[in-house]
């Protein structure tokens, strides 16, 4: 029977002894710029891993190219610093052929959405059992500060001296559009929230896309300050929790409702009259429509009304499982194959010299 449920983590061997954060630190010197948000994400991931209790030999971090993609060096697990934009493709091969591995992808906004955009959307639609951590600093960090596919319109950089012309991608919208089964957003400096999101992603059977807002303090400093400053954050951050009415603002005085005329979402002042209209967040809704609408609430320039948390978490058949089932059926019908014989074939040519 096809297992679309929670059994997938159980295929990964457990650690023999209790682990601590230290077990997940490698002996490599961490070489990001001092103050980079990547340090905070690394610490959160290393701090969270012991909770999973998986054998380190069965955990793999696959990255592409970029500052963020140096991540695998610093994890005391298996890892691969792979090809620009291709981490989802490599990880797909690994996850489908080795279901006893917990496979994580670390990618940047440039890596995932410029050169790797195609690989990303196909991994998402296939629902491969991957956990994709997309470090979004809205800039190319490694190559010293060119605008990226998530930079705001008009971004002035060395490559766009008069301001960028491109409309940015919203990675959460993109992932929901590709019908990703799990989509979440969190922030580098909010250790507690980041850890909660990692936990939910790790438990999800299928592709989990986690967008992590990450400060590049050298080339795009303060990009997410509107969400980090305690006072501003009350007005800018919408914390999504499954089953809870969506309220935010000082004293939770604002609420998200559905506009009856357009069907779209709107923000209103929370009053007794509209109390019953306040949208209750349903991350498990089969249709991605409301999750998509939530992802459009944020203003890409000011970041006002930015939802964080799990937008969507639904179960649907996992590619790895479907493929394993197909192989089982093929074995049953045709017996175990012989790859060597297949490659040699029985219809060969000899090239005469």
């Amino acid at each position, binding site marked *: 029977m096809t297992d679309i449920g929670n059994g997938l983590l159980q295929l990964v061997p457990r650690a023999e002894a209790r682990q601590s954060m230290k077990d997940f*630190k490698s002996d490599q010197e961490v070489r990001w710029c*001092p*103050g980079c948000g990547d*340090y*905070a994400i690394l610490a959160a991931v290393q701090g969270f891993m012991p909770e999973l209790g998986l054998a380190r030999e069965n955990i793999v971090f696959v990255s592409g190219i970029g500052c963020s993609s140096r991540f695998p060096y610093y994890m005391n697990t298996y890892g691969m610093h792979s090809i620009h934009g291709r981490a989802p493709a490599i990880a797909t091969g690994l996850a489908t052929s080795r279901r006893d591995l917990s496979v994580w992808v670390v990618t940047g906004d440039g890596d995932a959405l410029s050169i790797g955009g195609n690989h990303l959307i196909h991994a998402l639609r296939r629902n491969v059992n991957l956990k994709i951590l997309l470090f979004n600093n809205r800039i190319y960090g490694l190559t010293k500060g060119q605008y990226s596919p998530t930079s705001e319109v008009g971004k002035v950089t060395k490559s766009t001296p008069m301001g960028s012309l491109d409309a940015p991608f919203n990675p959460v919208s993109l992932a929901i559009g590709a019908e990703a089964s799990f989509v979440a957003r969190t922030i580098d400096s909010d*250790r507690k929230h980041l850890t909660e999101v990692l936990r939910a992603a790790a438990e999800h059977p299928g592709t989990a896309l986690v967008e992590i807002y990450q400060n590049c*303090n050298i080339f795009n400093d303060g990009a997410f300050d509107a969400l980090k400053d*305690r006072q501003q954050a009350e007005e800018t951050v919408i914390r999504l929790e499954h089953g809870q009415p969506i309220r935010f603002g000082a004293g939770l005085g604002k609420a998200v409702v559905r506009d009856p005329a357009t069907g779209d979402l709107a923000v209103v002042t929370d009053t007794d009259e509209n109390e019953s209209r306040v949208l209750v967040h349903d991350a498990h809704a089969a249709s991605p429509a409301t999750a998509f609408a939530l992802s459009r609430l944020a203003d890409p320039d000011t970041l006002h009304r930015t939802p964080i948390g799990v937008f969507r978490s639904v179960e649907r058949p996992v590619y790895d499982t479907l493929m394993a089932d197909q192989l089982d059926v093929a074995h049953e019908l045709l017996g175990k194959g012989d790859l060597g014989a297949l490659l040699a074939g029985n219809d060969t040519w000899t090239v005469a010299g």
Partner: protein
Amino acid sequence: MAYVIAQPCVDIKDKACLEECPVDCIYEGPRKLYIQPDECVDCGACEPVCPVEAVFYEDDLPQELSAFRTADREVFDGLGLPGGARGHAPLAADHAVVDAVPAPSTT
């Protein structure tokens, strides 16, 4: 692992480090600032900005200042992980190691 604020900060406290910390884990005490070692993510941003070179990576702390590693850890006993200095009142008291540092002479 964590960064540690040692003796040179005592009674200086210009707070340059505090501005730099991306996770807001540097807390103010009456005479010194303290790094919450379990919240510090080892990013190193605080170290180069300190005008009196008070900040050290834990492993690089000179032998004679090693008590400050204990001070930065123990001062948070009972406070746990406060989750950011900005929403937190300054620490009410210094660690004994800091109390033992003589006050600057006024002459």
